[in-house]
């Protein structure tokens, strides 16, 4: 079911991209149908997984969390394109959705997190994933800004919405993502250092790549939000930083998956 959902999302993105040439309205509806089909299938996977696990509480395991992320991104995309469409948003967000679902299929661990019982852990999981969601959007829209800006500077146009809207979108996403990420970092640190089982990251926790990548991503987003004070961090630079931040965040997710917890 998950693979079919992935195929649906890929098909939606491909059909949407094919509208670049002629802007044929019929294909927009087809792309939307594929997107909705993908959403329903991804939700079905979550329900099935929860039923198998015997618990409908979200974010109980890594597989569940990655699919939740992909599903929420798809819902966000569907909502945005319905309420106030931003041309090209699906071309940039869809690969992230597909990446998340493929990651869930390949690397997702169905083993429940041992620690998701405490309030700190819960807060950490929700805010960290929520932040990741918002910052994924910021990264996608930042990439859109970079392309649109580059084309405009070369006296060409791109069907990607106005620079002003893209910048606003990036800023809102980064603001939201940064807030959630900050809470996620603090709660994560408190949870890790104050765990009843001892320091989960080990005595050298401050040398953990996971910590450094997370802090790096946080610092990059702090720079983006620094623009009102230092306006040189607006426009292209802000967009570039949001893309860099997104890459670092992906690094954090990978670190979570593959690096040893203790040092």
């Amino acid at each position, binding site marked *: 079911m998950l693979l079919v959902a992935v195929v649906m999302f890929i098909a939606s993105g491909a059909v949407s991209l094919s509208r670049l040439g002629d802007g044929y309205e019929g294909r927009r509806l087809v792309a939307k149908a594929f997107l909705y089909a993908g959403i329903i299938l991804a939700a079905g996977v979550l329900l099935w997984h929860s039923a198998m696990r015997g618990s409908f509480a979200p974010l109980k395991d890594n597989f569940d969390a990655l699919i939740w992320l992909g599903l929420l991104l798809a819902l966000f995309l569907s909502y945005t394109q319905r309420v106030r469409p931003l041309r090209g948003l699906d071309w940039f967000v869809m690969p992230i959705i597909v990446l998340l679902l493929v990651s869930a299929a390949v690397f997702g661990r169905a083993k429940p997190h041992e620690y998701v019982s405490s309030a700190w852990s819960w807060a950490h999981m929700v805010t960290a994933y929520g932040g990741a969601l918002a910052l994924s959007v910021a990264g996608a829209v930042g990439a859109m800004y970079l392309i649109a800006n580059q084309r405009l500077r070369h006296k060409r146009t791109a069907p990607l919405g106005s620079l*002003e809207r893209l910048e606003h979108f990036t800023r809102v996403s980064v603001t939201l993502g940064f807030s959630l990420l900050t809470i996620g970092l603090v709660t994560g640190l408190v949870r890790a250092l104050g765990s009843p089982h001892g320091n989960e990251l080990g005595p050298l926790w401050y040398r953990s790549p996971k910590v450094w990548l997370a802090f790096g991503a946080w610092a990059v987003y702090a720079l983006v939000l620094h623009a009102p004070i230092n306006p040189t961090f607006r426009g292209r630079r802000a967009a570039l930083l949001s893309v860099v931040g997104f890459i670092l965040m992906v690094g954090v997710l990978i670190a979570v998956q593959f690096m040893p917890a203790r040092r």
Partner: protein
Amino acid sequence: MQRLILLGLNHKTAPLEVRERLAFNAEQCAAALAAFRDRFPEWEAVLLSTCNRVELYVARAPHEREREHELIGFLAGFHALAAAQFEPHVYRKSDLGVVEHLFLVVSSLDSMVLGETQILGQVREAYEAARRVGCAGTVLNPLFQRAIAVGKQVIHQTPLAEGRVSVASVAVDYARRIFERFHDKTVLSIGAGKMATLLLQGFVGLAPGKLLVCNRNVERAEALAARFGGQPVALDDLAQHLVAADIVVTSTGAPHPIVGRTQFETILRQRRYRPIFLIDIAVPRDVEASVAQLENVYLYNLDDLQRVVMQGRLQRRDAVAAARRIVDEQVNEFAAWQRQRELGPSIHRLYRRYHAVAQEELARTLNKLPNVSDSERAHLEDLARRIVNKLLHDPVQVLRRSENAHVPMSQYLHAMEKLFQLEADEHGNGGDGDNGAPVDPSGADPATGKGE
């Protein structure tokens, strides 16, 4: 009888850097025409200089040598340029090619913006300027009058000017790609010319928060600002206005850039790096090209907009085809009229001369035949007339078809006048005036060349 020559360069053959060096403003245009008249007193000239083209239309006597290099030298000398700087971009046309080109220009079919009507006014102004200086005469007067009529016909009889992709619409489209909202934006126009007016018309449709107009001529700035509900501002405070503005249209006639990179870096800092859309439609340019390299600055000039306009051109093939048909018809009509105008008096003189010769010879013969009756005399007169008509028929037909041949008609005409010694008759016998239809005293139809 004159020969037409055109030397010019336009947005298709020359980049903006070349065009702006060779451009003439109104004062320079008048001065150049006066200088032309002094240097080539027998010739006629009209100088058309717009943002997209500089064209010199010249009418000269056909027997004179080309002297094209002198015309190039004249243009170069006026601007103190080396001819090599622009000569590779210059196109040359002659005779009917000139007529066709002018009709295409005035119909906007050669314009950067298809269907734009501004070129019609510019051609009219160029022609009027030449008339005022005394550079337009018996050849260029009818040519330009006809051209203006063709321009009007294309505007009124084809959809070319409807829904056109103009510089203004392209600029507005780019503005929409940079900005999302306009109610909080300031549009600034530096200059109050026609192009600025057209662009402001487009931007006013976006309902910007504020519209500022600054111009050297304060009255014009006030008039333009009043027209669009804007606010006239002083040109002296330009830097301050640039800090406030989000969209800037600049179209002054300044010979050098009025906004430099160093100055703009300071302005950008003061703007806190807010994006700014600069549309520099001035030729020569008002904004240094290097300003475009600055972050959050989107600088477009006329050539940049051309690409988009060209795409619009492809979408309007039918309108173009209709306009092209009008131009082709008008070129043919003008050519026929011109041929008639040039041929008529010469053919008239040719027939008159040879019928007179025939009559002389007939009279001499009749003097030797005293018993010829009136009826026989009439037959003999008829015979003489038919012989002359038949002898002249072939050369006249060759003349009439000569415009389609590789040798221009004017050369045939010139040769005919020499061969048949018609020039001597020109002053003695005269024609029927420039536009008069030739009258064959023999009764032959000079329009067809056929007698009886």
